[in-house]
Structures are given as structure tokens and as C-alpha cells.
């Protein structure tokens, strides 16, 4: 009984403090500052400098400013749904961290990758509902584009993210398609055979493109299309409602690349979470920061695709290769 209570308390602390809510808040402040600095560097600007040391607290100041504003809704807007749905989306994406070795006490079950993908899907669904809750011609254009993008990028992301657990189960059946054990065996996924390495490489490339689409990063930011369709899905939002929507998007920009690093880039290799948790954690953070910087640079450098161009790109370079990788991962595992 004591052990049971201790486990529950530990899991609650993990969900709310580390690596959950509070840690993610700190990560959002740091990564947003990093993104702005990297983007500014590319454009020969200085980025944030005034608030906090080297401007590190500027994202926090911006966030608090939005949260403390009056909550304004227009005459047609749903009042409660955007708040509820964004809180729920934040809850579901933060809960995903409990399935990874980043949590000192993790949760796992056979086939839990399906539960993880379901929780990730809630973010996309909730952002679509968030946009639909505030009717406006520009918002509707943005949501229509977002739904079209999700139609191709979410299946591609799912297909790509399913490959590592399937490959891991082929190498070591005791991983049982669980995210936790797949990450613990992530270093072996590339080295076990030529076919597995090829399948992982295809899934990694397709997964990266799909991730850009799901996060609506340039060149796939046509659902927001700032300046083109006003602000797309966010046109009607301001104050705390906009802060909550951004909170979910920023969480997605942390947790998706982190999962990508742990599944496709060897996880904590050359360290292991089982042997040296601190070193493994730092390695994952460093790999994550490299991927995140790459995404920030792509976002800064690339122009925006037209919606149909973006969808065509996703079909060609994300969903098709991801499906091929998934099929061959299943066949190779079955044989």
C-alpha cells in the first residue's frame, strides 16, 4: 500500500513539476528565446535583449502580458470551448512525457505507442476546434487549410513514429511495441540490419517533414499565413485565449521533436537512462536543441508554400515514404 501511494505521488509530481507542467513552462521560455535569437541571427538582428539576462525572460514577459489581459470574445465566438479544449490539449501532450524515460518513474504497457499517438492527435483536433470556435472568414480559411494539412501530415507522422517500435519489437520482442522500451533500445534500431537501417532512415526523413507539417512550421504555415489571411486560425484571438493556444503550440514544438530525437536519433546514446539518468537526460536535451535549431532555421529561411503545394509535398515526401517504411518494417519483423 505504501509503495502504491508513493508511486501515485511520484507520478503526480512528474506530471505537474518534472518533466511535466513546470518544467515545460521553463522549456517554453528557453526555447522561444532560443528560436527568436536563432531567427534574429539569420536576419542580422539582435533578437530579445532587454528583459532578463540577454533577453532570456522576454518570452515570459510576453506570455504574462497576454495572460493578464481582459478576456475579450466577439459576438459569435464560443466562450468556454476554446479554454477547455486548449487546457485538455496541454494536459494530453504533457501526459505523453510520462510514457518516456525522461520521467524517472515512467508508465508503459504493450502497444502503448497507440495511446501516445492518440494523445498527440488531441492537440491537432483541439487546435482545429479552437479555430472553429471563433467564426470569422479568415479563421475559417485558416481552419480549412489546417484540416487539409492534417489530412496528410498526421497519418504521415503516425506511420513514421510507428516504425521504431515495430523495428524494436523485431529485434527484441520484449519491447512489446511500447514507447518506453523502444526508447530504451533506440541505439540498436539503426545497427541491427541493413533493412532496419534503411527503413529507419526513410521513416526519419518522412517523420521530420511530417513533424514540420503537424507543427505548422514554415513552409507549412499556411493555416496561420500571417499577413495573407490576417492571422488565419488565430485571427479572433487575443489575451489569455491566445496565450493558451500558443501554450499548446509551443508544447508541441518541444514534445514532438523530443520524441523524434528519442525514437530516431538514438535516444540517449552514447549514454543510457538505465545507467546514468543525468547524462542521458542532458544528451537528449542537446540532441533536441540541435533538431529544434534546425527547425527554427528552416522556419526563418523558407518562404511559405501555397496550400496545394504544401499538401503535394506532404503526399510525396512524407506520407508515401512513411507508408513504405511502415510496410517494410512490418514485413521484416514478421519474417
Amino acid at each position, binding site marked *: 500500500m505504501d509503495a502504491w501511494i508513493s508511486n501515485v505521488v511520484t507520478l503526480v509530481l512528474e*506530471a*505537474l513539476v518534472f518533466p511535466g*507542467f513546470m518544467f515545460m513552462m521553463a522549456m517554453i521560455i528557453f526555447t522561444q528565446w532560443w528560436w527568436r535569437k536563432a531567427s534574429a541571427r539569420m536576419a542580422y538582428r539582435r533578437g530579445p535583449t532587454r528583459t532578463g539576462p540577454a533577453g532570456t525572460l522576454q518570452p515570459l514577459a510576453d506570455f504574462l502580458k497576454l*495572460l*493578464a*489581459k*481582459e*478576456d475579450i*470574445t*466577439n*459576438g459569435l465566438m464560443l466562450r468556454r470551448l476554446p479554454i*477547455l479544449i486548449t*487546457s*485538455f490539449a496541454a*494536459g*494530453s501532450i*504533457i*501526459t505523453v512525457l*510520462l510514457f518516456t*524515460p525522461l520521467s524517472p*518513474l515512467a*508508465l*508503459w*504497457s*504493450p502497444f*502503448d505507442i497507440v*495511446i501516445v499517438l492518440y*494523445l498527440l492527435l488531441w492537440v491537432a483536433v483541439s487546435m482545429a476546434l479552437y479555430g472553429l470556435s471563433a*467564426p*470569422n*472568414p479568415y479563421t*475559417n480559411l485558416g*481552419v*480549412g*487549410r489546417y484540416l*487539409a494539412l492534417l*489530412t496528410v501530415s498526421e497519418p504521415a507522422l503516425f506511420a513514421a513514429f510507428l516504425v521504431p517500435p515495430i523495428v524494436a519489437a523485431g529485434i527484441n520482442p520484449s519491447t512489446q511495441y511500447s514507447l518506453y522500451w523502444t526508447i530504451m533500445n533506440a541505439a540498436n534500431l539503426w545497427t541491427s*540490419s*541493413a*533493412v532496419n537501417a*534503411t*527503413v529507419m532512415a*526513410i521513416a526519419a526523413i518522412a517523420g521530420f517533414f511530417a513533424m514540420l507539417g503537424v507543427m505548422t512550421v514554415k513552409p507549412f504555415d499556411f493555416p496561420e499565413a500571417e499577413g495573407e489571411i*490576417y492571422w488565419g486560425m488565430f*485571427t479572433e484571438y487575443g489575451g*489569455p485565449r491566445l496565450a*493558451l493556444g500558443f*501554450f499548446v503550440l509551443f508544447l508541441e514544438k518541444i514534445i514532438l521533436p523530443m520524441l523524434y530525437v528519442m525514437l530516431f536519433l538514438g535516444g540517449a546514446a552514447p549514454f543510457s*537512462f*538505465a545507467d546514468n539518468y543525468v547524462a542521458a537526460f542532458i544528451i537528449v536535451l542537446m540532441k533536441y536543441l540541435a533538431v529544434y535549431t534546425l527547425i527554427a532555421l528552416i522556419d526563418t529561411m523558407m518562404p511559405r508554400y501555397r*496550400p*496545394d503545394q*504544401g*499538401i*503535394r509535398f506532404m503526399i*510525396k515526401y512524407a506520407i508515401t*515514404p512513411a507508408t*513504405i517504411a511502415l510496410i*517494410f518494417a512490418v514485413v521484416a519483423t514478421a*519474417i
Partner: protein
Amino acid sequence: MAAIGMGPDVLVLVSFGFVFLVAGVVWFMMYHLFQKVYGRKLKYETPVKRDLVFCGMEPPEEDVMIPVTEVMTSVLSRAVRRWYKAIKEGAAVEFVQDWYFYLIVMLVILLSIGVALGW
């Protein structure tokens, strides 16, 4: 460093417990608290406060909404129009001219050989 294993059905229930817990904390800390302490005191009324955002202009009286599903289907159909046309008209040249088509075929052949030979 430890992990608690359980059945998938139990894990679904447990994870949803945590989803609701974190969602409640997010709502309370990031919306309710700020609005109660500060935001609600900022109330002011202007004639345009509840109007739609419309390029700084007054929204017209008639319905200006664009159906979301129409936008979505329009984007998707424009994205695949060329392929759709090629399939419909049997114009295989559209596919054969594309280096991407050869890359995919080669990839599938290579992987099939790899799987068959147990590489």
C-alpha cells in the same frame, strides 16, 4: 529510473486521469487565476469590441463566412488535381517523367530484395 508496467486498458484510464489533472492545473493557473486577480478588472466597452476582426473595416451585414469543408476540399483537390487528371486520362507520362516515381520504385525494389535475402 523505473517503469510501471500495466495492461493497455488500465493505462488508458490512468493516462486520462493525468490528462484531466494537468488540464485542470493549466486551466486554473493560466486562465482562472490570472483573470480573477487582474484580467477582469480591466473591463471597458467600445462600440466595436464585440465585432468581427475584418481588416479594420466594419463587417458587412450579409453572411461573410466561408465554409471550412469547402476550403479543405478545395485545397486537397487542387493538390492532387494533376495526378487525378493523369489517372483519369491514362496519361502515364505524367508519372514516368517524374524522377520521384523512379526513386520510389527503386526504393521498393531495394527493400524487397533486402527483406527477401534477410539483410
